[in-house]
């Protein structure tokens, strides 16, 4: 079966939720992956949405466009305030977080604030939102992102969300005792981090992706182990389920997010 870059990304991310009890997920591919995981590898997964929604049962074709709207709250178990939702993560209840960013570097630091300098940016981006909190407070964090050279940079222009900072022990030394980025899942492969240096290291290539492809899409020197695994191809069941969650392909286009014109309340 053929599949789009966004589809392999969503499926590879969903598989990472096997055995996970709760996931803090943002809108778009991360939330799609979380719902797919509920239907495959993690039936009892509790989804937590930043706007203050715990345990919603999201409806296929009606996934929320923002973290603060009724679609994201459907049949939720609890609707606490936003601060209290994040404090659940600070206390340590949240197992996994999914985050993304405009830039990521070899130590898993993410930038969603500015291209250029903070005071005089070349491009002002939307900002952290909850990304900084999720990466700082959840037990484990997975970065879910398209794999592009302009995105995978040697050093992010601004650390919005700290991965391993300068590597080694730097994250712990900064006072970030608990969470850590465990994996980076992209549409080309899956990366982890070296135990000692905390530099990003390739784990597996998705089917049909060559090592050269992946290296060409990465703007820094990735650690490459002697043996690189190949990701299991998406199964027909995974693809069917995923597509049923997003029947109009709002999120599963190759860019991973929909154009404005697809948002005319037509899912009613």
């Amino acid at each position, binding site marked *: 079966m053929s599949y789009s870059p966004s589809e392999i990304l969503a499926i590879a991310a969903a598989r990472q939720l096997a055995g996970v009890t709760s996931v803090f997920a943002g*809108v*778009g591919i991360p939330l799609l992956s979380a719902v797919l995981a509920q239907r495959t590898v993690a039936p009892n997964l509790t989804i937590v949405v*930043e*706007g*203050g929604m715990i345990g919603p049962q999201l409806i296929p074709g*009606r996934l929320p*466009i*923002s*973290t*603060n*709207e*009724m*679609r994201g*709250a*459907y*049949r939720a178990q609890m*609707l606490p*305030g*936003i*601060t209290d939702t*994040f*404090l659940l993560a*600070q206390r340590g209840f949240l197992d996994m977080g999914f985050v993304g960013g405009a830039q990521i570097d070899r130590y898993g630091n993410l930038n969603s*604030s500015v291209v250029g300098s*903070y*005071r*005089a*940016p*070349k*491009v*002002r981006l*939307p*900002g*952290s*939102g*909850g*990304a*900084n*909190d999720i990466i*700082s*407070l959840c037990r484990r964090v997975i970065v879910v992102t398209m794999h592009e050279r302009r995105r995978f940079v040697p050093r992010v222009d*601004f*650390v*919005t969300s*700290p991965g391993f*900072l300068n590597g080694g022990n730097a*994250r712990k030394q*900064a*006072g*970030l*005792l608990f969470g850590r980025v465990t994996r980076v899942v992209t549409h080309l492969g899956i990366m982890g981090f070296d135990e000692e240096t905390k530099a990003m290291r390739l784990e597996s290539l998705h089917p049909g992706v060559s090592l050269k492809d992946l290296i060409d899409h990465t703007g820094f020197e990735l650690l490459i182990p002697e043996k690189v695994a190949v990701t299991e191809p998406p199964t027909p069941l995974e693809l069917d389920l995923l597509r049923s969650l997003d029947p109009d392909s*709002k999120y599963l286009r190759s860019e991973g997010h*929909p154009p*404005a*014109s*697809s*948002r*005319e*309340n037509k899912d*009613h």
Partner: protein
Amino acid sequence: MKPGDFVEARRRLENKPIVTGEKLTTLSEAVQRVRDGDHIAIGGCLFSRTPLGLLMEILRQGRRDLTLSRNLMCYEGEWFMAAGAVEALVTSWFGIGLPWGLSKVLREQVENAKIRFEEWSHLGLGLRYRAAAMGVPFLPTVTMLGSDLMTATPTKTMECPFTGQTLCLVPALFPDVALLHVHRADRFGNCQIDGYPHMDADIARAATTVLVTAEKIVPEDEIRSHPDRTVIPGIAIDALVEVPYGAFPHECYGLYEADFAHFDAYVAEIKAKGTQAVREYLDHYVHKRRSHKEYLALFGEEALSRQSRYARELLGRS
């Protein structure tokens, strides 16, 4: 006020003229409490329960040099920038949502240093309102540590006196004014919110002056029969206005869904004409309309009832 100045913040509350009893008034009278240079905290979140009725009245009355704070800021921030009324924005995120892309207006203003943009993490800003709501100068947290957000904001670190761990301290944020839109209140300003409460209860306690619009003013007995549902006490409220569809075309949980087609049209105009499109929008929707009713008439009865029907469907109540 200096960040975290809890003594001054308390003094300001205590020095306010005492108002007992009813808080009901009009939008125009309520907003006269807002002054040039004020820090205004905006309730709701992104396009949920945004107090648009109050915000539009502030624009009509021409307040300037404002600092606006909101945990996730939607296009109301663009309105004030386009009106030349913003000195600084304090938020964790700015935009409408992924499908609508980066804010062209924000880019133009920040990249050309026309305003100051102060970026916090979502929880970091939430804890600033929480600290203020508690009447203390700061709260310790383990979020934001190690990130460049620490250098972009007036946070500090300290060694915990009990455990020796490094902590991030966020200073209390005491806004001059809070603007909130809630589902219902009695005439004394006891407010109830349905669905996700966002940060409204903290923001109401943090601010010196609190202006509230409610979808409905209900009899006192209705509040008294469900006091567990009251999230903001009347004693914290300065002015209250009944404004049905007071957040429209943003959403109000269970009552009306956000009108995404309106957002599409708004953004398309900005893509074509830049910030000038926002000024034209404000002229049409705000300055030429004398009341919220006149403003709603531009959308039409049919649009309002359609978005209400969608909301009931989304909650499985159709």
